[in-house]
Each structure stands twice: as C-alpha cells, then as structure tokens.
C-alpha cells in the first residue's frame, strides 16, 4: 500500500500538530528526554511507513496506539537492560527513575505576564504533578494521559489500550485518586 504525495503532505501536517504533545506524553511516561524523542520518532516512522495510505481520520487513533506500544516496548527493554546492568555492575543505579529537569521545557508565553513568585510556584506544582504521574502504575498513567491529556473519550481510550471501557474508567478513577492523595500529601492545592 503506497501513499500519494497529498497523503504524505497531510500526514506531515498531522504529525507536526501532534508531535509536541506526543513527546510530552512519552516524557511523562519515561522521564527521559532522549528516550522520549526516540519513541516519538519511532512512532512517526511506523505510522508513515505502514499506515500513510489509511484514511486521515484513522491516523490519531493509530498514532496513539503505535505510540503507546512503542512506550511499552521501551519500558520492557529498559527493564531487561536494568536487570542485567544491576546484576553485573556494583554501581548500577539504573532502577532509579530520572529526575525531572526543570529546564526540560519552558513555561508558555502566556505565563510571562505573571509575577515571578507565581511562576515559580506554577513550575513547582507542575513538577509535583509530573512526579505523581511517574509514580502511577503504567496502565493507570496510560489511561489518564489518553483520556485527559489527549482528550480521548472512554471508547477511544479503550480501543488504544486494547481493554474494555470499564477498565479504562477504573484505571482513570484510580489514577485520579492516587494523584489527589499524592498532591495532598505534598501540600499542593490546585
């Protein structure tokens, strides 16, 4: 199945529209800048080479599905690698999750009008939310991000995750409760 020039052009526009959100989503799951870039590039490549000729309205779900699978593959490989590294290395600290880099991304221009104190507290809140997301079990985080970050409905989320709608609701509910408790423990109010 080969894609026409128009297909490639509109695929390019689609990817340009979703790439930053996808990277952010991968970063939230992996907490590693380069790994998130690799994962997004891989997902883009797979979509472009295998599904470019599919109808454009199918791309968002396909891309999400590919992205989630690629993130999961990376996590699985990383787990195996960490096992061997920690087995053979006395200095192996690969199990520790990467710390968030506050310079990883910039606060949006719309925040520049605010005073410095509120910008700092906004960044701290953001870092705590990201930490909370990183602490969630993978499936809960996946459901939460697809449902609220990607703004998918329950049925679409279930399709991407390959589970029932009931499972999605359960994962999302548990994720919200865990995040609420985490933020409350950290003294954060939204």
């Amino acid at each position, binding site marked *: 199945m080969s894609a026409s020039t128009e297909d490639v052009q509109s695929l390019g526009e689609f990817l340009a529209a979703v*790439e930053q959100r996808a990277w952010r989503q991968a970063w939230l799951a992996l907490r590693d800048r380069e790994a998130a870039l690799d994962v997004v590039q891989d997902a883009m490549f797979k979509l472009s080479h295998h599904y470019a000729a599919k109808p454009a309205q199918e791309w968002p779900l396909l891309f999400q599905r590919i992205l989630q699978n690629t993130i999961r593959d990376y996590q699985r490989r990383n787990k195996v690698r960490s096992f061997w590294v920690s087995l053979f290395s006395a200095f192996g600290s690969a199990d520790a999750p990467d710390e968030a880099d506050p310079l990883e991304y910039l606060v949006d221009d719309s925040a520049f009008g605010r005073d410095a104190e509120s910008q700092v507290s906004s960044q701290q809140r953001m870092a705590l939310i990201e930490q909370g997301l990183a602490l969630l079990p993978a499936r809960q985080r996946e459901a939460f991000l697809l449902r609220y970050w990607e703004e998918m409905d329950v049925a679409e989320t279930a399709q991407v995750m390959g589970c029932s709608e009931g499972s999605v609701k359960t994962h999302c509910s548990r994720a919200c409760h865990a995040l609420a408790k985490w933020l409350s423990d950290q003294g954060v109010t939204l």
Partner: protein
Amino acid sequence: MNHQQGGRLDEVAQEAFARELVGTLQQAQAGADVRRSLARARHQALQPHGGSIRQEVLSWAQQHRAVAMVFSFLLLLSLAFGVWRTQAGVFNDSSDPQLIAQVVDEVLLDSFEDDGAL
C-alpha cells in the same frame, strides 16, 4: 482545589480534577531543541526511503532477535576465520588448479563410482 482532594472523588469531581491537572501541565511547552529534534524526526519519517534501509534492518533485527544474533555470530566467525586464514597462510594451495583437479579425481569421483552414481 475545592473538590475533596485527598478524599474520595465522585465522577464529576474526578473529571474536574483531571482537567485541572492537565491544564497545569499544558502551561509548559517543549524547549526549542526538542522542537527542532521533533521536526527533524518528522522529516526523516516522511522520507520515502531516506534512512529507511538502516531503520528497516534495525527493526528487522529487533523483531527477529535470535536469527539476527545467529547471523551476527556466523559473520563474526567467518571474518575471524578469514583473518586467521590470511595471516596463517593456511590452505594457500587451495587456489592451485592442479591440486583441486587431483582432489576431485581422487576423492569426489571415486566416491561417486563407489556409490554407482557414475
């Protein structure tokens, strides 16, 4: 936050809480270097064949890890054998046509005759 943070969240409160969290996260955007890397990745992904051979080989090797390992091992083995053969000067006579003819006559043809194939 006013909707029972830390306690039980009903469905409506849960939705509002999640939207608020995501709203906070969306205040940030990727840095310039990340945006550049993403744009580069997109261009590469959209190339019809640019860089795809390497990617194809890598993804094939990833999907068929065991076969790829066997191939790599055989390749290494044959390389090592080639190097050893060159350095040690072993089997230099193998390129001698007379010797090859003699081996064919004495070993191969004789064995065929024994089997009644000829």
